[in-house]
């Protein structure tokens, strides 16, 4: 890869074929454009597959429906996790990395052949993993904890996928070097690229952790190693498993900034604050492996406290900062756009009919209120014992990864379709409703799973009635209600997901070609463009609306935090 990069500089580099974007004036490298397209298409295919599996899971856990038999339930649940949490999200992230480097930096993509090799490896890995799961010998769940063992090609598939993703990340770094070298931009990289860089750095750590644990586990599955310590496995595996979620956080926050910039002309309130917040992710988010080890034997409390809190919650502080700066930059931009009345005119008059904006803003709200708060509570050393391995855990991460990341990626797709695929969205009315349906469905899933978990219902569990158990046990009626509601909201989310896939596929195949002079506009407000060119003075910013929003968030956070301590104090005593 290095060799390719170096030979490319100065010769092939400046001659790489490109087109000029009619909206931004940026050079769009042809190789980058094609690679963004194929990665995004692969992402949507795995979203469709994994989403369908998720619906089957929810319909099985809905006690009144109880759709699948037990063996199929565990099989489909394993496939659901791999397809959406790994394949959908990482394919999309690779597309985001190429967009944030080659396109935003006005540069050619470094080493497109390596990028293609990475893509082929990822597709092969993802396909092989699905084969392994559907063969039925690898229903080990996404986490594949030993001593339970999957078929060797299950681990091999994940390794192939990870190697492919690592190549993609390498191409991203290479493109940054090429752009700097060929001086395609002036000064520092844009904030969105900085966020993508954060994601890429965490990705390297994540994939390294994955290699360190999955390679020996693969050797164990073919009999070359005779023992994998289950506790050691969890420490290292979650170095991949949880840190990979931090890639999502960084990528999704970068997308929030990107959509706010493209749609209402928002710019960062302060480059220093926003970039420092990203830096906190790089420094501390990787400690989160401990979130999965709070209920384990043999680990000291001091180790747990330091790691689970990301070193005094400095990474949480990073997210809380973005939670203010993203809506704050929108408020500032909207007030400049002329919506300056009262506390909330800027928000009321925001482009709620544009699915990219509504998806982005709902993602921001749900990620903060549902995923973020529940994550801190779940990751508190003592409180974890209330929820460890209950449905609260998937409740939490559907708040972060579905209502947060997936919704943000969907919103980004509505920008990528016209700008990169150069197609106008077909069925715009349907697309307008899509983020609301999917977002509200996903938020409902999260909340009701958290509710069921609070009432003690186990995750990854086929039968909450315990019909076949020797010693009977009965959950409360409230727990059954929660899972019924979870099923209803899963159906709503699935409708939103199906509309998304239909709109994307329809647009890519049949959407009207976007050529210069097309009715499409970026940013949406004519005055939006004017503020782009200069840096605002902080003294002119007035953000009363955002101040009210973050105050509500903070009050909810504190209240929910202490409710859980109250609940903990009522348990049996243990030490």
């Amino acid at each position, binding site marked *: 890869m290095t060799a390719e990069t170096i030979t490319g500089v100065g010769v092939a580099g400046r001659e790489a074929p490109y087109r000029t974007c009619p909206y931004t004036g940026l050079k769009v490298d042809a190789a980058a454009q094609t690679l963004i397209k194929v990665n995004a298409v692969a992402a949507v295919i795995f979203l469709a597959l994994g989403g369908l599996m998720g619906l089957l899971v929810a319909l099985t856990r809905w006690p009144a429906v109880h759709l699948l038999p037990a063996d199929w339930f565990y099989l489909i649940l394993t496939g659901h996790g791999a397809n959406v949490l790994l394949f959908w999200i990482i394919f999309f992230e690779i597309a985001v990395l190429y967009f944030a480097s080659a396109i935003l930096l006005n540069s050619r993509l470094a080493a497109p052949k390596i990028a293609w090799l990475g893509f082929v490896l990822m597709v092969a890995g993802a396909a092989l993993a699905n084969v392994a799961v559907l063969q039925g010998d690898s229903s080990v769940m996404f986490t594949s904890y030993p001593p339970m063992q999957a078929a060797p090609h299950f681990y091999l598939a994940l390794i192939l996928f990870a190697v492919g993703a690592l190549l993609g990340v390498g191409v991203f770094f290479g493109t940054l070097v090429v752009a700097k070298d060929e001086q395609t931009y002036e000064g520092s990289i844009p904030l969105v690229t900085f966020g993508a860089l954060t994601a890429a750095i965490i990705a390297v750590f994540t994939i390294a952790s994955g290699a360190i644990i999955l390679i020996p586990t693969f050797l164990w599955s073919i009999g070359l190693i005779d023992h994998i310590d289950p506790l050691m496995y969890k420490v290292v595996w979650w170095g991949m498993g949880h840190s990979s979620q931090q890639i999502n956080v960084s990528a999704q926050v970068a997308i929030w900034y990107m959509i706010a910039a493209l749609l209402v002309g928002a710019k960062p309130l302060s480059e220093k604050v926003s970039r420092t917040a990203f830096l906190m992710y790089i420094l501390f988010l990787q400690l989160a492996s401990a979130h999965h080890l709070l209920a384990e034997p043999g680990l000291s409390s001091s180790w747990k406290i330091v790691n689970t809190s990301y070193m005094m919650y400095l990474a949480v502080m990073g997210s809380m900062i973005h939670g203010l700066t993203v809506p704050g930059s929108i408020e500032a931009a909207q007030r400049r756009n002329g919506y300056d009345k009262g506390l909330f005119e800027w928000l009321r008059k925001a482009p709620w009919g544009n699915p990219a904006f509504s998806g982005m803003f709902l993602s921001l709200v749900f990620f903060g209120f549902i995923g973020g708060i529940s994550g801190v509570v779940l990751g508190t050393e003592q409180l974890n*014992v209330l929820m460890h391995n209950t449905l609260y855990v998937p409740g939490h991460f559907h708040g972060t990864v579905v209502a947060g990341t997936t919704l943000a990626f969907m919103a980004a797709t509505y920008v990528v379709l016209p700008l990169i695929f150069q197609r106008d969205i077909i069925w715009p009315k349907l697309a307008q409703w899509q983020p609301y349906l999917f977002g509200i469905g996903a938020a409902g899933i999260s909340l009701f799973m958290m509710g069921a978990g609070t009432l003690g219902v186990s995750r990854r569990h086929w039968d909450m009635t315990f019909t076949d158990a020797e010693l009977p046990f009965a959950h409360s009626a409230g727990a059954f209600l929660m899972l019924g509601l979870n099923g209803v909201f899963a159906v709503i989310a699935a409708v939103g997901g199906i509309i998304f896939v239909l709109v994307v596929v329809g647009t890519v195949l049949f959407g009207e070609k976007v050529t210069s002079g097309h009715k499409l506009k970026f940013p949406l407000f004519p005055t939006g463009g004017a503020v782009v060119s200069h840096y605002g003075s902080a003294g002119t910013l007035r953000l009363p609306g955002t101040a009210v929003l973050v105050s509500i968030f903070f009050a909810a956070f504190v209240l929910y935090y202490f409710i859980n301590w109250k609940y903990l104090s009522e348990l049996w005593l243990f030490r």
Partner: protein
Amino acid sequence: MAVTPPSERIWWNEPISRVELIWVVVAFLWGVFMFGFMIAWHFIGQQNLNKEAYRIAPSAYEAKVEQFANLHKVREEKGVPVVKPPPGSDVYLLGRLWQWWPILELEKGQSYRLHISSVDWQHGFSLQPTNINIQVHPGYEHVITLTPTGAGEFGIICNEFCGIGHHTMTGKIYVTEKTAKQADAGLGAQGK
């Protein structure tokens, strides 16, 4: 814009708006508070998970639990022994495919040293409806000093996926309340 390079080359020196600065300080202090509260709970709280654990071969643990069950067995329920150990003693519980073994009978308000381990795969000890959830590993014997605060019949379910019979894996703990006379006698003994 966030998609273009910062317009000031030296963006580090740009002033920060007041609302941003206040929020950064609030977020930082809240983080420090939550960090401190976890530490504080070790001193003011009654629910802290012990790290005490020993490496043990699954077969050796199985033998220990059987010996314990034989010693204190009071009756049987569906072929599973119900074991009533004396208050304050070491109590052993075993997770395996797919049951928690044996059934325990404890007294409210008494402390027990509860040992938990698995002999095959990982399991999740989930005491319901109290909602205490602890991970159980094969090869590690975890010791927790447990004091029931409520009487009645409690279920143990498994909440770590352990194969096709996972949803049939249950166990039971009975917690008995002492009669007034027994309690008086106990208090009297403590008074001496």
